[in-house]
């Protein structure tokens, strides 16, 4: 009997030791992360794509962040006060946070970072920081003075932001990585995030653990590369990448998401899929009637906009720009009625397209979109239309404006209806002259100053109606963001349920 007890005790010790110390035996290997688009720049002030935002979120930290419940939580700022009319935000900076070179974070870092970023030549139509900073006192004199008077740093731990008018959603926007604090050390930009990024080449980054970061991670380092989304399944199963981080679920074919060790993390609705219409003068869609006609064709056809996405499983077709149960959302009946109104203009659209065939930019492998549009009777210029890579589409959208229709998406930045400001507001970070509407822009400017929640709904209902009247873009619907990973090679520590969560620190390497 003693032998049995001895053996059992020995086995327990061995098993216990393996469980406790097995994970500590070897340094974990780096995790390979793939993205479907290039991030272009890892400078926070030049971030203008969703992918860049998620890559940057691993290195840079803004004043505030979001927790698992989508509540705003301290990040670079450990606390804040807001005055009654929401024009003055006073932040206490967490000076215990450190950059990856060991230096402490201060309020001056934020002021310097933002003013520097505003000086850069933006990749998008507006500066990435414009939709927040333009609201500050003295912002309109920045180009003359070189600083913004509405940003005050009385000491190294205090940051005061004075806005010209009430800014209800300031905190929502201040979580964006483009508003993070950064420092230049040599030729690199460093932050206070969990990782420190280092470029190895074009579209190839290494992220090493920031030894001074508060965020713990079992992984040793990350290697980030850009892959062709059509090779996703092969890349995951063969080990070229361990994680395919943040993609619109509607854009990934279902067969690419199935595999013996392939797992998919699904978050909330995070991306608006849309057909951006070029309403610049002289273009076909400068006529509002024709934009309404296209809206009708897309959403009144059988299956609605589902035909225009690869994977309807993670997509819900919806003509409205605001999410269900979001303030300002119209009833389905009213929305349908507004969409129906475009039916009378369909023959005109078809006739005009015959005169001036449409130039359509879609993504690689998305030619079925052209077929679908042609099925409506529209004439497509197949020579000038193209399967454009992400860079081409971005450049076209912000600068060149060659297409009549551009198939693309924009992220949902928050649950407040003001989240549409960054794409349709006058100073929106990712707006474009192609889609700017004066009517809509005015509604959005007024809307972000309202603090009474009852009035918010009324104001944004105006937006919703204007959106379906003006049709700056045909909103196809909402897509859930997904992260795909190989469960044999990586594990995940916590439930990743936030909307736009590009953070990779919850992942850890399983195999040596």
């Amino acid at each position, binding site marked *: *009997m003693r032998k*049995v007890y001895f053996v*059992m005790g020995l086995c327990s010790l061995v098993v216990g030791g393996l469980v406790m110390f097995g994970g500590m035996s070897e340094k974990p290997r780096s995790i390979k992360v793939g993205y479907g688009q290039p991030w272009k720049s890892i400078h926070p002030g030049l971030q203008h794509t969703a992918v860049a935002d998620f890559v940057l979120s691993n290195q840079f930290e803004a004043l505030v962040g979001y927790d*698992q*419940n*989508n*509540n705003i939580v301290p990040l670079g700022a450990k606390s804040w006060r807001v005055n009654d009319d929401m024009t003055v935000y006073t932040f206490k900076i967490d000076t215990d946070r450190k950059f990856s070179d060991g230096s402490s974070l201060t309020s001056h870092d934020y002021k310097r970072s933002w003013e520097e970023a505003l000086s850069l030549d933006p990749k998008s139509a507006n500066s990435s920081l414009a939709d927040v900073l333009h609201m500050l006192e003295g912002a309109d004199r920045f180009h003359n003075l070189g600083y913004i008077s509405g940003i005050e740093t009385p000491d190294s731990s205090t940051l005061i932001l004075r806005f010209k008018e009430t800014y209800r959603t300031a905190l929502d926007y201040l979580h964006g990585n483009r508003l993070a604090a950064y420092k230049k050390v040599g030729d690199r930009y460093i932050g206070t995030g969990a990782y420190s990024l280092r470029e190895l080449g074009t579209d190839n980054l290494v992220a090493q653990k920031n030894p001074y970061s508060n965020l713990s991670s079992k992984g040793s380092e990350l290697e980030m590369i850009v892959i062709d989304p059509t090779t996703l399944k092969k890349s995951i199963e063969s080990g070229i990448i361990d994680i395919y981080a943040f993609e619109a679920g509607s854009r990934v074919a279902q067969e690419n998401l199935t595999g013996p060790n392939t797992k*998919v*993390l*699904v*978050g*909330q*609705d995070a991306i608006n899929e849309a057909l951006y219409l070029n309403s610049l003068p002289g273009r076909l869609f400068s006529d509002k009637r024709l934009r309404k006609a296209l809206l009708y064709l897309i959403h009144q056809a059988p299956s609605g906009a589902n035909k225009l996405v690869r994977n309807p*499983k*993670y997509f*819900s077709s919806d003509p409205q720009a605001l*999410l*269900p*149960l*979001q*303030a*300002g*959302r119209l009833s389905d009946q009213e929305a349908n009625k507004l969409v129906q109104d475009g039916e009378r203009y369909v023959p005109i659209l078809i006739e005009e397209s015959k005169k001036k065939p449409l130039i359509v930019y879609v993504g690689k492998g998305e030619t079925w979109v052209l077929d679908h549009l042609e099925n409506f009777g529209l004439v497509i210029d197949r020579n000038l239309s193209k399967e454009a890579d992400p860079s081409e589409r971005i450049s076209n959208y912000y600068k060149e404006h060659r297409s009549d229709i551009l198939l693309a998406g924009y992220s949902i930045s*928050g*649950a*407040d209806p003001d989240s549409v400001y960054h794409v349709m507001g006058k100073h929106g970070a990712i707006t474009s002259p192609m889609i700017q509407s004066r009517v809509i822009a005015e509604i959005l400017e007024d809307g972000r100053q309202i603090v009474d*929640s*009852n009035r918010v*709904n009324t104001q944004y209902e105006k937006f919703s109606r204007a959106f379906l009247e003006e049709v700056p873009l045909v909103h196809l619907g909402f897509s859930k963001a997904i992260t795909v990973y190989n469960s044999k090679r990586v594990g995940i520590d916590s*439930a990743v*349920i*936030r*909307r736009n969560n590009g953070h990779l620190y919850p992942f850890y390497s399983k195999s040596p």
Partner: protein
Amino acid sequence: MITINQWFRSKAIVPLVLLTTTVIIAWISLLLRQYYDLRKYQTDQVQQHANLMQIPVTRKDRVILETLVGSVFLNTNSRSVAICHNNKSLISLGWRSGFCKNSVDSVFQRVLSSNIGGLEGYRLVASTPIFPNGSFWLALVMGGILVGASLIIVYRLQSSIRECILVPLNGEQTFEVIQIKEVDDLLRKQELAKQAEVHKATFKVAKQVAHDIRSPLSCLDAISKRSDGLNFEEKDLINRSITRISEIAEDLLLRDRPQKSIPPTLNNEMVLNRNIPISEPVHIPIVISEILSESLESKRVECSTLENIKFSKMIEPEAMDTLLALDPNGLKRVLSNLFNNAVESIKPNCRGLISASLSKENENLILEIRDTGAGISPSDLKKIIEKGISIGKANGNGLGITSAQSFMKGLNGKFDIYSKEGFGTTVRLTF
């Protein structure tokens, strides 16, 4: 009379099974309780959050609604959570699609659904895995190990009893049929065999002594015959002593030789009621009073130099001619030892009396040897009787009393000893 199996069941199995059953019941109860508490907690969480959601839904405050949905997702360990309206998902979180239409429990998941207070058609739905995580599985595994270990212990206990006790004792006897009495008999036989080994070893030594003693005895015999300085009585005593020692030695040497059986020709009325096993040797009946007288006389002569000790004898007329078929040498040895004990109990500076008596009570012959020596304390007396330990004698080995006891037991007689410190000791042999 019970079997080993019954004995094991009543003494060992039942308590062990009760213990194991108690452990199992406690373990299952704990798991069920944990499971029930978890499920109740999950259901309560969904209900509470559904109650909170009414205002945000009516005001279309998606900011708060998303926070509440996230809270349900985390607090209930759900796979999916959604706000559904007429089977259409308005807000959803998690990996399952088409969730609002599927409200049926399945093997792998349980659907918790609660109406959002006061709103027609609005529901909060959460899909939770059937088997909870964390401590439930830990309790399951640990409890399983405990139960498994208990069963192994019970099984091993049974095997040990069979291997270590039953098989060595009874060889081919099976676990179920052996009786407790048989085990007792077997254990007694084992004990007797062990004692026999000890006696055999002791007897071997005694035989050796007896063998070796014969040479010096022969020498003494020869010298005593030639000795002219001794009177008749002294010569007679020497001869008797030499004869006695020779008889003792001869007796030891002959002990393990097969006895010649003498057919019984005696008068049954003259033989006292005894049970003599057929396998034991049959002795010629002897007159007990003569043996007693001879032994006493021999001891008196031997102690003639001890002036403080007197000897006396009393033989009742009825017992004078009583015959007993027993080993005369054995009786002489016993009497010699008892007289020696009596002599040695009287201190040199004290006066003492040693008396022997023979009488009849009912059909029994009673032989008593009394002394007025130091006496024996009750505790010492107990040791002498039970363990044969010698008290107060420098070279004693306690065999005198023990051999007397054995001798009387072999005759189905009785051996009794009474003593009082300061007054003396009485040894009573009942034939």
